[in-house]
Every structure is written in C-alpha cells, then in structure tokens.
C-alpha cells in the first residue's frame, strides 16, 4: 500500500489539549513540516508563549523553552546573539505579543534580531477565559467587553504587522489565515519562507501573522469560525505580504 500522507516527525504523535476547531494544531503542524523539510531539527530552538500554546513543547519535538508572558522576543534575542548558528523561533498569541509583549516585539524588530516570529492572532485571550485582546474586533463580545468592544471605550484593534512593517529592522512581514485549505497552504509557504530567511543569514526579523479560529470564545461552530475569519477579521487585518515578498 502506498502512503499518501504521514505525520511529520517533528510533530509529536499525541493528542493536543486544544479545543475542537482551534487553529493552534494546524499552525503547529505547519511549523513541524517546515522544520523537517528544511532539515533543521538539530539546530532549532523554539519558544513557547504564555497563552493557549504554553504547552507547545509537548507537541513540537525540538529543543524548546517556555517563557514569561510576552517576553519571547527578548528571550529569542538572548539565544540568537549567543548562538548565531541556531535557528530561533517564537510562537506567540495576540495577548502575549500584542498586549503585554508589545515592547519586546517592537524592540526586537527595531534591532533587527535574526529571529522568526509566528504570531497567532485569534482576536481574544483564550487560556484565561475569552477576555478582550488588543486585536479584538470592534463590537466583538468578550468576557471583558460584554457589550462588545467600542473604539471610544477600548480603542481600535491593534494592527501589529502594520506597525512592524515601519521598522527598518524587519525584513519580512506577512499576514496569512487558516480559514481554508488554500489559506493554510499559503500560511505554510509564508512560515517556510520566514525560516529560510533566517537560515540564509538575512539581517533582520521576520514575522508571520496567522489569523486563527477560536470557536470556543467566538461562540461559533468550527465551520462558522472559519467563515468569520474571512468575513470579519480580514477586513481589519488584511491578508498579504506586507513587507519583503517571497
């Protein structure tokens, strides 16, 4: 019998703790495939955030560290500066990267750290119970915006990718989505490109923002959540290669 599909080795053979319909599992697989395809498992170090993906090291079979909330880009800096031959990536959610860690990602980008950042944007804090994130959409109902987010009350959704584009230290910024097979395939290409850039020694930070479903705290079915990404999120977070095309 011919094998047409198999689990990529760097993705561990175990069930995840993620909710049904969550995007983290897909994003993990894309990273694991990239690492295996590039043959860099033996020189890659991953950084897990605080948030739903805090246990990413249980699913990705590379050397990994779990760090304080938002500080992954600083940790990555310490690693890459002392180990320029290693491939360093951080995996961060929107609470981690855009809220408490806004300073760290801004300055790592500003310094042009040679690291790869995978930024999972699902417009909500998942692990702590569905509170508002900086990326929460206007009118979106969360545990801490029970009547929906308002511009007057909580401000507009924060467009981190667009912010980072303005920094000379970033070399590649792309926003993708996990909302369809085509988009997942495109996300894979973007993630792979970001790793390849680091592998080539390119001088600067690369970031792939991934619009990812959270059916649980969007109060939607997994299928509806995928639709909501395209109908709502991409309006505020337009997809595309914002800086440094591949």
């Amino acid at each position, binding site marked *: 019998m011919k094998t047409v599909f198999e689990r990529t080795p760097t993705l561990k053979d175990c069930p995840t703790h993620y909710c049904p319909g969550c995007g983290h599992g897909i994003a993990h697989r894309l990273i694991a495939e990239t690492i295996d395809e590039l043959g860099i498992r*033996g020189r890659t170090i991953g950084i897990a955030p605080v948030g739903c993906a805090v246990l990413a*090291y249980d699913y990705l079979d590379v*050397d990994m*560290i779990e*760090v304080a909330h938002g500080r992954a880009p600083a940790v990555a*800096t310490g690693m890459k*500066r002392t180990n320029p031959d290693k491939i360093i990536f951080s995996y961060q959610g929107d609470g981690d990267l855009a809220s408490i860690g806004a300073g760290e990602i801004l300055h790592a980008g500003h310094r042009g750290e040679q690291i790869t950042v995978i930024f999972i944007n699902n417009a909500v804090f998942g692990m702590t119970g569905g509170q508002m994130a900086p990326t929460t959409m206007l009118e979106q109902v969360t545990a801490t915006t029970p009547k929906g987010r308002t511009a007057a009350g909580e401000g507009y959704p924060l467009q981190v990718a667009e912010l980072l584009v303005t920094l000379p230290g970033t070399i590649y910024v792309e926003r993708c989505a996990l909302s369809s097979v085509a988009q997942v395939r495109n996300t894979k290409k973007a993630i792979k490109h970001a790793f390849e850039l680091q592998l080539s020694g390119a001088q600067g930070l690369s970031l792939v923002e991934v619009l990812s479903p959270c059916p649980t705290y969007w109060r939607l079915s997994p299928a509806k959540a995928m639709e909501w990404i395209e109908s709502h999120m991409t309006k505020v977070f337009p997809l595309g290669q914002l800086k440094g095309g591949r």
Partner: protein
Amino acid sequence: MTERGQSSRGGDKRVLMCGNEALAEAAIMAGCDAYFGYPITPQNEISAYMARRMPDEGRVFLQSESELAAINMVFGASATGQRTMTSSSSPGISLMQEGISYLAGAELPAVVVNVMRGGPGLGNIAPSQGDYFQATRGGGHGDYRTIVFGPSSVQELADCMLLAFDLADLYRMPVMVLADGILGQMMEPIVLKEKPRRDLPAKEWALTGAEGRPQNIVRSLWLGEGVLEELNCTLRDRYEQIQKNEVICEQHDVDDAEIVVVAYGVAARIVCAAVQKAKQDGIKAGWIRPVTLWPFPIEQISKAADELRIFLVVEMSNGQMVEDVRLAVSGKAPVVFYGRPGGGVPTVDEIFELIKQLTLRSKTPI
C-alpha cells in the same frame, strides 16, 4: 576569544579600579559569554565597560530596551548553556524579579548584580542597603531562593563574581551580587587574579538543538498533580545543601567580646573602624561580617550568642538583616539595631559612640 578563566587584563599587578569596572572585568575573567543590561545610576560603569570589553573578547554585549527585556535575554542565553549576567540598581532589579523567579523555576544559572540605591520608589542615587529583603527572600513570586553575596571591598566584589558564576552553574540557580553605590563607585587597588574553581557538571539540559538526542525542554510550568511540589522539594533540598556548604562569614574578636557588631557590605567597613576605636578605648568588642547574605551565617551568629553579650546590627536601611540576626540569636541575647536609611551613611564616630553607650549600660546594675 579568551578562554574561560582568562582575561586579557588579568594578572598579579595591583590596579586601581572602581567596583563597577572591577566586577565587570571579573565577570569576563569568569567566562561570562554575554552581558545584557539597561542604564541606571549608580551602576552605569558596568555596561559602559562591558560595551568596550566584551566585543574585544569575542563575546556578546547588548543594551536592552528595559530591565524586563534584559533579564529575559539572560534567560534565553542561559537556557542555551551560556554564562550570562545582567546588572542594575534597585528600581531596575524590581522590574527583573519576574525573570529571576522564572530563572529559579526553570533551574537556570545566571548572575545578577544589584548596585543598590536609596528607595522606595525612585528614591535617590545615594548608597543604600534597602534591598536586603528583596534579595535574600527571593524577591519575585514563588517558593525560591537566590544565593546572595554582600561584598565589602572592590577586591571582594571582584572575587565573588568568580564564585557567583561557579555557584550559579553548580546549583543551577540565579546568584545575586548585592553591592551599593559606594562600592560600585569607589576605587581601590585590586589584583585581578584567577582563583581555584569548582568542578562543574556538563550542562546536559541546555538547549543546543536536539541533534541526535531527544528534545530538551526548559520550563517553569508544571501542571501535573504533585509535579511542582516535587520540583519545589528538589529546590528545597538544594537550598539546604547550599546553607550547609556555602556560607562565607568573617568574624573578629568575638570570643571574649561583650558586644558583637554585625554588618555587611560598606556598613561593615565603617563598623570595623568603629570597633577598632572601641578596642583602643578598652571596650571588649568584636564583629561579624556575613559575606553571603543567603545562605546566612546562622550557625556562626547562634554560637556567638551562646555567651551573653550584646549584638548590635548596623545597616544602611531601616533594619532588614537585623531580622536574620534576631532569628539566629533566637532570644539568647539582646539585639540592638542602628540604621541610616535613604542614602544615609553612618559615620565611624556614630557607631563608636553607640558601642560605648551600649557597653556602659550593660554594666549599670538595674
């Protein structure tokens, strides 16, 4: 790149250096691979020195965007097995506490230098010993300890940097060197000389890329039932070992003393002068100087308290180490405190007068 234990500046020659620069050079000698830090007075000479010297030695210097970032850069570099450090002063150390707690939880070695200034809040930039509690009680959240050195001379400051890196690696934990504005700024002749080093285990836990081996994970998160308790018990056992093996303490003329003055750091130098003066005046005085503030010299002080004598504790604070002295004395002898907080520095005469009064009073029949 110079080898660990070497520095292009080391040797037998006496050189005049300020504390901040001496500790930086000693760190280079100790094999510090990377320094990360954010400016704050009165320790800016450290980062300026490292900015010049680390690239010369083929090592890493980086000015971070904040103390939060600095300690997390240390966290990252340490996790890959590198020897690394940061330095700051009181308000900056407060910001680093999160990272120090994570270092303790993840069992990562690192050296953190605190050149203390007056507080609370922004305080002032004058010398102070107001961060003793913060340093010796862990400082951040959770159930942990840091080894803390409280050197009192530029030479000792440099020497304890060498030891700090070794102990951090040996026990896999953050080690803090607690200096103050005087020690950081003052110059003294020192000899930057290699000292005997500890045998250190290989860092098999380090994140180096999982080439040909199972994945390594560095983490401080343990959600499974009882797992964190187990880790905490491991740490507790390690802390007990440290308490048993790593206490450093200097004591003079304690045996026949009617008064024993306890002080650390710069305050201990002032105490030393005051005690000498008291002895010239015929007073039977001795002094104890903890060099490690944690582990604290509990046994030494407890033993000294077996004879009835007065203990005087002198600090540049409102009284912090005095609590450890009281615990060690455990009610066996009276403990009197004298402190100058907020950047005040006690004078030799102040302490001498106090010693005189206390010893007079103890002779007055009630």
